[in-house]
C-alpha cells in the first residue's frame, strides 16, 4: 500500500480509530496493530507476510537463546547464528541471483560449466529494512544494551506499518519501550504531523515527480543526446529528486507515526549543506548510517586499529552499504566511491591534526567545502541512478565532451528555480516552519480539515497522474 493513495487514506482512518479505542488495553491493542500492519504489508504480496513473521520469530528465538547463556563464547555463537539466520532471507532474495549469475559468467568465461542454479527473484518490499532492525534487536540483546522483549512487542516492533517498507530503521531502544506505555490520546500534535505528511507529499508528488520527468529521466535515458550543461543540471536535479523522494517518504512515515502517538528518529538533516562526505553521511539516511556504524564499522574495529585498518574498515562498510541499496555493479561502485572519499577525508583529518593547519575556516571556505561536497555527492549519484555502469560513464563523458552538443532544451528556468529553491531550503532556519505549525495548530478542527484538503488539492493538481513508487522501496 502506497502512502499517497486513497487505499491508504481509508486504511489509516480505520486503523487510527481502532488504535485509539484499544489504546487502554495493551494486549488487544498490540494484536490489532500487528494485524493492521500485516494487512498493510499483504497489500503488495500476501505470500511475503510469512517472511515478515519468520524473520520476527527468528529474531525473537535468537534473542531468547542469547539471553539464556552467561558464557560469553556461547552468547557470541548464539548471536552469530541468530544474525546469520535473520539475514538469510535477505541474502537469498536480494543477493543470491546477483552472485550466482556473476559466478557463472566468470566460470563460463574460464571454460568451466558449473551448472549453478540461476534465479531471478522478486525482492520482498521492506526486507532490507526489517531485517536490519531484527539484527539490531539480536545484537543489542547480546551486548546487554537491551532486555529480551515480549513476543508481541518484537512482532509489532518489526512490522509497525509506518516504518515497515522504507524505514526509518528504528532501533529497539527507540521503539519497543514506546510499545509498553500508554499513549496519551488527549494531546496529539496534529499540526506537526500534518506539516510532515503534506510537506512529504509535496516533495514526493510535486518536486520529485516534476524534476524526474522534466530532466532526469531524459538525461539518463540517453546521455549522448544531451549537452554538457543538460547532463550537469540533470545530475543536480537527480540529487533533488532522490532527496525529495526519500525524505518525503520518511516525513510522511514520521508524521503518520506521530498521529498514532509514536516518536520516530530523524532520518534527514539538510544533507546538501554538508561540508564533507563524512558530514553528508551524518545527515543523509541517518538511521542507516548509524546502523552501519554501530553494527558493522565498530565491530570491524572502527578506527581503533591504526590508519590502514581504518581505511579498510571504511571501505568494507561503504561497499556493503552500497550493496544494501541494490545487488548491482553500479551500487558497488557507488559504495566504493563514497568509501574512497571518506578514506581521503580521514587521511586529511589526520594530516590536519599532525600539521595543525586549517584551524578556523572562513565563510568563503565553508561555502567552497559545501559546494565541493554537493558536487562530489552528485558524482556518486550518477552511478546510483544509471541503469548500467556504461550509462554512468557515457553521462560523465558527455559532461566533459558535450559542450558542443546542441542539447534538447531540457534546462528550463523552472527546472533551475526548483533546484535552487530546494538547495536554498537546506539552509533555511527551522523557526518559520515551527511558527507555521503553531499557527495551524490554533485553527478550528473543521478549518484545519478544509485546509489539509486544500493542500491535497494543490498537490494533486500540480503532481502528475498516478504516483511512481518511492525509490527506496526497491531497496
Amino acid at each position: 500500500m502506497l502512502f499517497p493513495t486513497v487505499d491508504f487514506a481509508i486504511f489509516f482512518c480505520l486503523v487510527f480509530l481502532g488504535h485509539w479505542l484499544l489504546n487502554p488495553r495493551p494486549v488487544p491493542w498490540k494484536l490489532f496493530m500487528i494485524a493492521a500492519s500485516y494487512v498493510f504489508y499483504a497489500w503488495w504480496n500476501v505470500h511475503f507476510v510469512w517472511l515478515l513473521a519468520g524473520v520476527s520469530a527468528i529474531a525473537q528465538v535468537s534473542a531468547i537463546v542469547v539471553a539464556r547463556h552467561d558464557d560469553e563464547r556461547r552468547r557470541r555463537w548464539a548471536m552469530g547464528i541468530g544474525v546469520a539466520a535473520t539475514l538469510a532471507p535477505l541474502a537469498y532474495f536480494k543477493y543470491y541471483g546477483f552472485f550466482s549469475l556473476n559466478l557463472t559468467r566468470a566460470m563460463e568465461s574460464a571454460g568451466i560449466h558449473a551448472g549453478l542454479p540461476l534465479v531471478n527473484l522478486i525482492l520482498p518490499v521492506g526486507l532490507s529494512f526489517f531485517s536490519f532492525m531484527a539484527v539490531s534487536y539480536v545484537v543489542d540483546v547480546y551486548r546487554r544494551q537491551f532486555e529480551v522483549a515480549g513476543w508481541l512487542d518484537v512482532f509489532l516492533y518489526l512490522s509497525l506499518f509506518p516504518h515497515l517498507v522504507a524505514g526509518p530503521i528504528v532501533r529497539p531502544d527507540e521503539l519497543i519501550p514506546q510499545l509498553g506505555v500508554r499513549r496519551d490520546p488527549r494531546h496529539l500534535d496534529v499540526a506537526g504531523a500534518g506539516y510532515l505528511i503534506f510537506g512529504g507529499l509535496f516533495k514526493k508528488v510535486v518536486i520529485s515527480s516534476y524534476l524526474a520527468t522534466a530532466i532526469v529521466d531524459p538525461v539518463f535515458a540517453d546521455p549522448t543526446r544531451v549537452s554538457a550543461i543538460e547532463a550537469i543540471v540533470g545530475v543536480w536535479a537527480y540529487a533533488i529528486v532522490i532527496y525529495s523522494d526519500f525524505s518525503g517518504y520518511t516525513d510522511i512515515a514520521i508524521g503518520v507515526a506521530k498521529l498514532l502517538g509514536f516518536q520516530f528518529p530523524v532520518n534527514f538533516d539538510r544533507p546538501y549543506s554538508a561540508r564533507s562526505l563524512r558530514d553528508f553521511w551524518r545527515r543523509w539516511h541517518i538511521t542507516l548510517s548509524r546502523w552501519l556504524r554501530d553494527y558493522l564499522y565498530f565491530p570491524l574495529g572502527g578506527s581503533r586499529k591504526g590508519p590502514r585498518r581504518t581505511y579498510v574498515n571504511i571501505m568494507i562498510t561503504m561497499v556493503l552499504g552500497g550493496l544494501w541499496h541494490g545487488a548491482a555493479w553500479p551500487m558497488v561502485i557507488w559504495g566504493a566511491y563514497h568509501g574512497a572519499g571518506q578514506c581521503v577525508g580521514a587521511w586529511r583529518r589526520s594530516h590536519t591534526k599532525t600539521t595543525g593547519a586549517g584551524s578556523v575556516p572562513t565563510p568563503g571556505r565553508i561555502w567552497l567545502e559545501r559546494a565541493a561536497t554537493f558536487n562530489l555527492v552528485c558524482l556518486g549519484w550518477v552511478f546510483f541512478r544509471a541503469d548500467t555502469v556504461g550509462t554512468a560513464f557515457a553521462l560523465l563523458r558527455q559532461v566533459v565532451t558535450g559542450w558542443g552538443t546542441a542539447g534538447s532544451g531540457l534546462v528550463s528556468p523552472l527546472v533551475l528555480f526548483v533546484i535552487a529553491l530546494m538547495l536554498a531550503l537546506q539552509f533555511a532556519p527551522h523557526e518559520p516552519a515551527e511558527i507555521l505549525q503553531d499557527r495551524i495548530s490554533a485553527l478550528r478542527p473543521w478549518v484545519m480539515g478544509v485546509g489539509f484538503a486544500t493542500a491535497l488539492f494543490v498537490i494533486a493538481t500540480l503532481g502528475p497522474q498516478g504516483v511512481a513508487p518511492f525509490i527506496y522501496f526497491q531497496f
Partner: protein
Amino acid sequence: MMPEMPRDRPPNGRFGAHRRHTMPAGRVLGVMLVCLLVWTLLYAPTLKRASEAQPFGTRRMVSLWVLRPLAGISDVFQLTKVTDAAARALGRDPGGAPGGQAPDDLPTIDPNVSVSPAPDEPVTRSTPMRRPTSDNELRIVVVGDSLAAGLGVYLEREFRPSLSRISKQGRISTGLSRLDYFDWFSAMGQIERDFRPDLVIVMIGDNDNQGLTSPGGQVVTPIGSFEWTQGYRDRVDTFTRTAIDGGSHVVWVGLPIVSEKDRWPVMQRQNDIFRQVIRTTPNAVYVDTWDRFAAADGDYTPFYRHEGQVELIRATDGLHFNPRGYQLVAQAVAQAVVDEFELTPRALNG
C-alpha cells in the same frame, strides 16, 4: 495498566516560545474525515471516471457505489469547476481519458521541415524508408503499454541522435481492449496528424486479456468468445492502418514469453493475430520476442544465453525486461528496420 508516555513538547526558539496547540484523538479523526470528504467531493468526478476504467470486479463495483452519489453532490455544488479550471490552467484536459501519461509530450512537426503529404489512398505496396538528414531527421514514435514505455528508452540509444528524433508515447496499463480507459485509435490519429512519424514502433497487448469495450465503457465482446478474436484482429488492423495510411512504416513487436503459463494461450493467440495482420499489411514488419527470449526447451527463462555468455534480461515480475533485455529488443527492432525497410545503417548508432 501501562505507564503513560511523556508528551512531545516543541522546543522554544529565538522567535519566542512556541504555542503548539494539541488536539484529542477524536477531534483529529474529525479533521481527517473533513479533509477526506472535501477532497473526495472535489475529485469525485475524476475518481468516478478512473473507477469506471478499472477492471470489472468487486473493487470497481464498490468504488462506483460510493463515488456516484458523491459525484452527484459535486456536480450540484459545481465543485468540478474548480478542479477543471485548475487542470486547464496547467494545460491538461479535465475530461480526458484516465489512461497513464506518456513519458514525452507529443511533439509537433517543425513547420520549416518539408514533409511529404500523407497518401490520398490506402497504401497497398511496400516502399523503402526515406534517407534521414540532420535537417530532416527520422521521426520515430514508440507507442503501446508499459513494455513500449521501457522499450522507448532503449530505442533512443540505437538510433543516431543527429539523424533521428524519437518520441516515447508508451502509456502504462493501456491496450486495445479498453477504449474507455485509453483510446489508442484517437491517439494514433493525433500522432499521425501532429508528428507525422516516419516510423511507428508498437508494443502493446499485455493488458488486453479482457473484454473489448467501446469508448463509452460498454463491453461489446467478452473475453474468450470467438467474436473476441475477430474483434481484436479488427482493432489491430485498424490501428496498424491508421499508421500506415498516415504515411508511416510500422514495426510491431510481439508479446514476450512470460513466467505465468496461465497467460500463454491468450498471449500466443494475440501474437498470431499481430503476425497475421502485419503479414498482409505493406510497410509493416513483425518482430518476435516470444521464441527469441524463450529457453531452449520453449519454457520461460529470465536469462539469455548467446555465444557462451549468460545474461539476466527480464525483470522479477516475469513480464517486463530489465535494461539489458530492452536493449536486446531495441537492437532487434533497429535491425528489422534496416533489413526490411532499407533504412540506411548510418541512421543507427555504432
